[in-house]
């Protein structure tokens, strides 16, 4: 493993940002620690009791001083907050052209699937310099996808999707850890992220198992489960058309709206009564137990692949 490091390698665009904030925090911390330590040390010696009946003059306080050492720390903390929040905000906004990868955590392994259908267990191969967005869930307990070299971490929660993203900047091999305690083999639920030069990545992709892409498998599943009996592409069925649905804003019964993202589609498959599209009834049965999390991900990619919205909205 080489000689022990004292500082993690920087391998994503986030890493230098996070580290710069760290340096600022370190500077403030060292400054105040030294200030307090040295003051105490100095005062303890300088004002050491020399005789038993010494009585120091009582000083009860000074408002000016109190204000000074409240306002200055407060100002510093507001800088820390703003800086940290801006990094966090960026971390929540993956770019539109990010490479999508699906992740399912389960006791005690990570299952990852690329759009082309390449599956990995406890390993993730990605190209350098390209934004990657992970859509994650768990099959059982809460897990957490942590890559120290990227400075990113996000919990994988059962029953919903969470997302995280990063742009790797340096080819290499980086630790992947599970960072939410999940039982016996929590400390073994990890692996490696391989960041490769783009050409090597293409080679890797084509060498992967040819079990069909996510979207292709999703279409197979869609047909097997007979979703098309209701979800007719021209909207003439009892249920909304799925063509061009992904990314659209959907009107719901009761007046609200929702963006048709991955989470919405997953929920509509597993808990269809949660959000009913306006103009339709609560007739869709749940597919909980009939579809695995991987199956849901395949269906999502299939639905994403259905073209742009039709020219006219169907009347109903």
């Amino acid at each position: 493993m080489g000689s022990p490091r004292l500082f993690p390698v920087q391998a994503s665009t986030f890493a230098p940002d996070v580290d710069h904030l760290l340096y600022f925090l370190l500077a403030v911390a060292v400054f105040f620690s030294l200030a307090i330590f040295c003051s105490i040390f100095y005062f303890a010696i300088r004002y050491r009791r020399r005789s038993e009946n010494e009585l120091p003059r009582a000083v009860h306080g000074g408002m000016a001083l109190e204000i000074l050492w409240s306002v200055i720390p407060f100002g510093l903390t507001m800088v820390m907050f703003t800086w940290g929040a801006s990094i966090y905000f960026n971390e929540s906004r993956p770019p539109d052209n990010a490479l999508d990868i699906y992740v399912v955590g389960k006791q005690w392994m990570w299952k990852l699937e690329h759009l082309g259908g390449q599956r990995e267990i406890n390993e993730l191969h990605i190209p350098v310099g390209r934004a990657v967005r992970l859509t994650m869930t768990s099959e059982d307990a809460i897990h957490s996808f942590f890559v120290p070299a990227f400075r990113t971490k996000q919990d994988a929660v059962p029953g919903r999707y969470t997302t995280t993203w990063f742009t790797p900047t340096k080819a290499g091999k980086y630790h992947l850890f599970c960072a939410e305690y999940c039982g016996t083999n929590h400390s073994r639920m990890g692996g490696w992220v391989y960041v490769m030069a783009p050409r090597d990545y293409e080679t890797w992709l084509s060498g992967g198992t040819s079990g069909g892409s996510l979207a292709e498998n999703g279409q197979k599943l869609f047909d097997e489960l007979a979703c098309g009996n209701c979800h007719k592409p021209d909207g003439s069925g009892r249920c909304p058309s799925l063509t061009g649905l992904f990314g659209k804003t959907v009107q719901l019964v009761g007046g609200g709206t929702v963006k048709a993202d991955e989470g919405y589609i997953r929920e509509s498959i597993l808990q269809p009564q949660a959000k009913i599209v306006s103009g339709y009834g609560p007739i869709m049965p749940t597919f909980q137990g009939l579809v695995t999390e991987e199956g849901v991900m395949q269906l999502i990619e299939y639905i994403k692949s259905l073209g742009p919205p039709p020219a006219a909205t169907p009347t109903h």
Partner: protein
Amino acid sequence: MNTAAIHEREDYLNVSHGLKSWLLTKDHKRIGLLYLATITLFFFLGGLFATVIRIELLTPGGGLVSSETYNKLFTMHGVTMIFFFLIPSIPAVLGNFFLPMMIGARDLAFPRINLISWYLLVIGGLFALFAMLAGGVDTGWTFYTPYSTTYSNTWVIATALGIFVAGFSSILTGLNFIVTIHTMRAPGLTWFRMPLFVWAHYATSLIQVLGTPVLAVTIVLVLCERVFHIGIFDPALGGDPVLFQHLFWFYSHPAVYIMILPAMGVVSELVSTFSRKAIFGYRVVAFSSVAIAVLGFLVWGHHMFVSGQSVFAGMAFSFLSYFVAIPSAIKVFNWTATLYKGSISWETPMLYAFGFIGLFTIGGLTGLFVAALGIDVHVTDTYFVVAHFHYIMVGGAIMAYLGGLHYWWPKMTGRMYPEGWAKLSALVIFLGFNLTFFPQFILGYLGMPRRYHTYPEEFQVLHVLSTAGASVLAVGYAIPMIYFAWSLKYGAMAGTNPWGASGLEWKTPSPPPLHNFDTTPVVTHDAYDYSTVVGEAVEIG
């Protein structure tokens, strides 16, 4: 060493004898000692778990214990230390003993409820002990769902019941303190003449009373879920596992202020006495305790930045978390300012106070790191957080507790501890502590996750340093056990006021009589007035 002399005068220790007189006592002083014995036992139990953990972590592959056992060890270490040692410690031992005396009262408002509080801690502890002996629990002290409700097959229910019962011990203590401070202050003792130790315990009691019930009901829901599979936290039935985290941390964040506020109260007493000077900025320090208690209820979501909660929620909680840091910083500055032009004596309690201020400063400053969203995404659930809270809980709270024990030991027992050994163990603890926990900051930023039984080889050197520190720390904790016990029989006799301290508790004999004061004192001056304590005073500064 005239042991006969100490028994000429009747005091709370010799006024009655026998097991019943202790187990059915209503005397707050005896109840404080009952708590002292109980929590000391739990401290050593929790320390035993920590010892095995640190030995196991000497090597990356483990090998001393299985993963199942390791997971139980860190769970039980956390549960024992937090619920059965730290939360009771200062309030239940020193608070119980000295709060009434400091305000000139004969006892707390509800002595029988005080005794019940102790029994509740013991009963809760027995439940938890049963769980540990029957096979242990492996959910982590935070028992996140759905692991704790669905997937763990260990003694979750027994442990949760133990914590539930112990929670009521905490609630009743808080209730007792609030009522006592409101209704039983001696004539002339206005709020702003109270010692800061009392203010600190008032603020702590507010948290105990408002926060602990939420933990209790969360435990009830977890138990219902585990026994009846009702679905509150189970996604398959429409439940939300993250709801548990909100309910859990709503208590458990304020809980950390339950653990640190009393320690800050102790430090105020120590810094004042051993500088022979009133605390600089008394009112500001008093208000800061209450501010911490209030603000502490608004920041729980900073434990959940990567839980899947919204970005807005993350920002709100980070923002508020910086607010709660300020009152703590103000205290540190005020204590330091108190030393300026004081008359500083270096007895053991003061050494612990110095240690507290230094280590709490570091721990508190690292809190600023984890409050920063961008940093926390990287360091949450790593050893960085472990180091942060151990700096505060061990470097801070436990040092203050030891400082308080040494300070008030003469009053409680009538005996002095041996100063030389005490200073030595304070130094050993300080060094051992830093060697144990400083490397963990580095480990955490490198990416070493928490609750890991095995780890990559490149982290080993730092783990070895940490374990070495732990062995030094263990020695440091063992020494006071020995000399405190020794002092009960062979310690020098302590007078009424060996430290030249102000405060009503130093105006009664050591050990105090049963009812503390023969007549209720009348208070005519502020706290920390040394002019009446120092004979033939020579003013300096």
